[in-house]
């Protein structure tokens, strides 16, 4: 780590970062939530590099998860919510893959997935919660015994219900223990980072910080590289220390078509077009060819979308989003 994660200048390009840290069969998580602050540029680059068999962990990453599944990059999924807000009550490529039986899924809740990342970040094997007692989230396991045996990275049990050993008052009879997640790589998109990798997220952090700390390697894409002094003048506002980070990649609009608080909004037109394409395999293949494989990089992708559409998404400084944007 002294070499990889130390004070070195970690700025690199996206193709290089993805090529180095995202590999066939790796265990991975991505930051953001539904159509907000997903590391889309890195996700499209992963698809472009045709990296397969990912073991993907997510709480509610709608758009990023659905595109990775649709492009055939995902072999196993542990997730809480396969939807995308108002743009997809259930993500279409996710739904198709599960209904066709091609994608093994393990279901948890958003809090359980968050606690699992937190446990990994804390270096403990599990964390307790009272969530989902009495439900099929406890009783029904998506991953078979065999799958759990053969992959040393997956815990041998989905979760464990146990009596509360401190149950003196009797108010909390039982808890659910959820196992830690320790990924090979986490990819996050943030507003600001410096060359060493200290990062500042504006707005809600979701479980991005826990994801970064539970991963062996961290790729940060950011809207803007700022000077170390800019971030250190008010360190209360920074969330990720540089020594957790391996690669820093400046990618303006790197979350597009998802939103990035204080920078730009999600693109309803794109998300609606995606939803239409996702319904049909031929249309979806054409979608990937046009926007993902058909773009050399994120810059080229944005050029396809065109500056007019992009500019309409720019955030209003008072609110942090594009006020009055037509979101139909």
């Amino acid at each position, binding site marked *: 780590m002294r070499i990889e994660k130390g004070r070195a200048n970690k700025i690199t390009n996206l193709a290089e970062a993805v090529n180095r840290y995202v590999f066939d069969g790796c265990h991975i998580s991505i930051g953001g939530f539904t159509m907000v602050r997903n590391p889309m540029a890195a996700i499209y680059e992963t698809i472009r590099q045709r990296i397969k068999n990912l073991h993907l962990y997510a709480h509610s990453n709608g758009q990023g998860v659905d595109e990775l599944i649709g492009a055939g990059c995902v072999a196993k999924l542990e997730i809480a919510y396969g*939807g995308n807000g108002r743009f997809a009550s259930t993500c279409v490529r996710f*739904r198709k893959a599960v209904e066709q039986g091609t994608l093994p899924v393990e279901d*948890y809740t958003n*809090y359980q997935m968050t606690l699992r990342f937190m446990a990994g970040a804390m270096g403990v094997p599990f964390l307790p919660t*009272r*969530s989902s*007692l009495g439900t099929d*989230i406890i009783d029904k396991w998506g991953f078979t015994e065999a799958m759990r045996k053969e992959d040393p990275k997956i815990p041998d049990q989905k979760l464990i219900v146990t009596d509360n050993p401190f149950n003196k008052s009797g108010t909390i009879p039982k808890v659910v223990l959820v196992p830690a997640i320790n990924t090979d790589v986490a990819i996050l998109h943030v507003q600001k980072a410096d060359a060493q990798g200290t990062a500042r997220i504006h707005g809600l952090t979701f479980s991005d910080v826990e994801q970064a700390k539970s991963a062996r390697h961290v790729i940060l894409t950011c809207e803007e590289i700022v000077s170390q002094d800019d971030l250190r003048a008010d360190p209360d506002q920074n969330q990720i220390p540089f020594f957790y980070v391996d690669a820093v990649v400046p990618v303006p609009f790197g979350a597009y078509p998802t939103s990035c608080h204080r920078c730009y909004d999600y693109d309803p037109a794109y998300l609606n077009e995606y939803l239409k394409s996702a319904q049909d395999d031929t249309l979806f293949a054409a979608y990937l060819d046009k926007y993902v494989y058909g773009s050399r990089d994120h810059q080229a992708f944005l050029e396809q979308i065109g500056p007019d559409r992009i500019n309409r998404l720019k955030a209003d400084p008072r609110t942090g*989003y594009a*006020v009055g944007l037509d979101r139909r």
Partner: protein
Amino acid sequence: MSAYTQRELMAIAAARQIRDGDIVFCGTGISMLAAMAAKHISAPQSVLFFETGAIDSVLEEIPMTVADSRVMFWTSVNGSLADAFATMQNRITGSHVIGILGAAQIDRFGNLNSTVIGDYHKPAVRFSGSGGASDVASFVSRTIIFMQHEKRKFVPKVDYITSPGWIDGPGGRGRTGLPEGGPFAVITNMGIMYFDERTKEMYLGGYYPGISPRRILDNMGFSVDISRAAEVTPPSDHELRILREVCDPQRLILGG
């Protein structure tokens, strides 16, 4: 009194269930719209609260996801998922949170399915899954549920229990180790269902103008007590104006 759509009526019916001062956990869509309407109509002191960590959001525009930048505006605190769920599991704050949820299936005890239709391992239909719904249904004092009134959705036994209701009736939650609290009301396109204090079973509390209790029973896979049902007061012009002009002028949630 002006005409209104079913969706408008549902949003208003749910909004009326929110008490002033409640901490309201909102999901995406109509649940958010109901909370937003209540805030502008009858519960100005209520707190809009999102699982993503936004606490006491000021919604100048309707969000399209609980992670939308619109929920991050002018809040008391912008935190994380961990903070938000801890606030609901917390014994002091959690007892003052009311959750609004939707689902694909519901049974007489208010247990919800938002995961699969059919066998979990070979589903006929796959839905989004829990998200934060099972957490909320596990932790908070009262939940309000949105449903479409159809036989295949009000079923004797849900295909998969995603979010706990009253489990199998009186004492059911206690036996599983869940905190107290549970489903309070079910708002549908035809009426409002409540849960009996003693039996924890669903009963018809109200039916919308022009819809008979009988017709509601015809749209359910199990029968419920209708003896306590009364006609629901239709939305007032004021309620409709707030809903249409203040909350969702683009009809993003209300639809056409």
